[in-house]
């Protein structure tokens, strides 16, 4: 973007919006937005409370465990569907159903089956992340160039070798799936904690809303948003690296 011949960096737009936010807040134009400066001030308050550290720990723990399970299960499921047509025909429908289903409606079930604490949040993260990883892995496996598979076969590669080639070829799609899974997982951990029980970040949200601490509330939301965006960015970087390394595929 250039303006009067000057190049304006991409993130400049965010500053613009922050200024808009501050004005909206100062003049109390929209109830939803307290002044941004107030939110910033609350930010330090939020991160220094002892309950924040504990909430962050629980949240990070549930998130990481759920996501790791989702990555392992998603890649496994995707491989199975990509390589075994019968499995694909049986499972594809369910993967797609879970992908477009309102998963938040399932949380009450998860809650009853897995209890009120961390396991439910972990399962929620898992449910939010696993399907997209499986589907992208499946797509990656199915799009492995048939000639590359034939090549491996014709040069006498063993089964293990051939599976390795399939995995490496599908890596860009798998990573794309993981990136989406990472983002969906953050949504899962938040929804899980909000719906299930008052633990982790969910507890802080209740605390702030019961005490009418709007600034704190926004500060916590911004922290969560920043966390989600940085994670996505991180995986995006990794993805670019692989894409570059793998070159134009197919």
């Amino acid at each position, binding site marked *: *973007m250039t303006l009067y011949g000057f190049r*304006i960096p*991409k*993130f400049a*737009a*965010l500053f*613009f*919006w922050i200024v808009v936010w501050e004005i909206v807040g100062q003049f109390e134009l929209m*109830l*939803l937005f307290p002044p941004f400066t107030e939110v910033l001030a609350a930010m330090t308050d939020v991160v220094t409370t002892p309950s924040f550290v504990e909430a962050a720990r629980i949240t990070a723990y549930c998130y990481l465990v759920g996501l790791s399970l989702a990555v392992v299960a998603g890649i496994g499921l995707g491989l199975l569907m990509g390589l075994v047509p019968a499995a694909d*025909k*049986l*499972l594809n*429908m*369910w993967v*797609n*159903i879970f*992908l*477009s*289903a*309102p*998963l*938040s*409606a*399932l*949380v*009450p*079930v998860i809650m*009853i*089956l897995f209890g009120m604490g961390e396991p439910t949040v972990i399962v929620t993260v898992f449910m939010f992340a696993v399907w997209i990883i499986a589907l992208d892995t499946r797509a990656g496996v199915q799009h492995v160039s*048939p000639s590359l*598979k*034939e090549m491996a076969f014709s040069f006498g590669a063993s089964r293990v070798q051939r599976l390795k080639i399939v995995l490496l070829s599908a890596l860009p799609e798998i990573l794309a799936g993981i990136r989406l899974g990472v*983002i969906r997982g*953050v*949504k899962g*951990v*938040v*929804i899980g904690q*909000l*719906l299930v029980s008052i633990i982790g*970040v969910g507890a802080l*949200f*209740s605390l702030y*809303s019961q005490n*009418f601490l*709007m600034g704190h*509330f*926004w500060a*916590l*939301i911004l922290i*969560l*948003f920043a966390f*989600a*965006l940085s994670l*996505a960015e991180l995986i995006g970087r990794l993805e670019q690296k692989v894409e570059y390394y793998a070159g134009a595929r197919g």
Partner: protein
Amino acid sequence: MSATVPAAIAGGPTGSSIARFSQMPAMWRILSLALFFAVWEIAGRTNFNYAFPTFFETLAAFFEMIFDGSMGAAYLRTLEPLIIGLVLSLGVGVSAGVAMGLRKEVEFLSLPIFITMQAAPMAALIPLITFVYGIGLTSKVLAVIFLAMPVITINSYKAVRNVPPSLLDMSRSFMGTRWQQVTKVILPAASPMMFAGIRLGVAEGFSGVVLAELLITPTGIGDLITFHRSVANFAHMYATIASIVAFAVIAVSLLYRLEITLFRPEKRGLS
């Protein structure tokens, strides 16, 4: 993979008819559903969890709620914020996305906002909305919009951006005006991806309305879920949840059908 044994060798006419039979997607779907329900029924019968009903109990509960009218009433309640929210998300999302795709300065200003909204856990805003807008329809509509709009917008934007450059050149080289370019080339070419975004948005919208009904005040489907849970009518609770999941999935697939029949003449009769 490619070395499939020809049916003629594998098993004569029987082999090939089995092959043809198994190519029918509907059959696999039914098989898949049947398997799922069977596993559900068996798991329910093992009583591994006091709150896990069998499939048939759930089905009976479903029909019970259909016939006593509570299901219908709940859906009427739930659909109101959902439809209002989705219509608003569609209108604003598609226009904002197309505007960002067509105009650089709009993209510069708005894209970061929508990227943030899409990547971030917008659900965290729901308690905040309640905080500010109370427990009425407004809050629920906003919950739907917050979840549905980002993905609709971003996909519309990407769809416009991904129109093949040679199609644009083509329209230009045949003296298309900007208006003709947009209406005759960009929008039709962008429509598949746009619709993909709309389908995702509708799915998110369902998520939003259920969340709102579970988090803000229990009404409609959310009320059925919490109520039946609170009185331990677990079959009813499962039936409600299964019905909203099925409803969302069916709505999304109907949308796909609609897209094909209205906008994709070349795909008609293919699927």
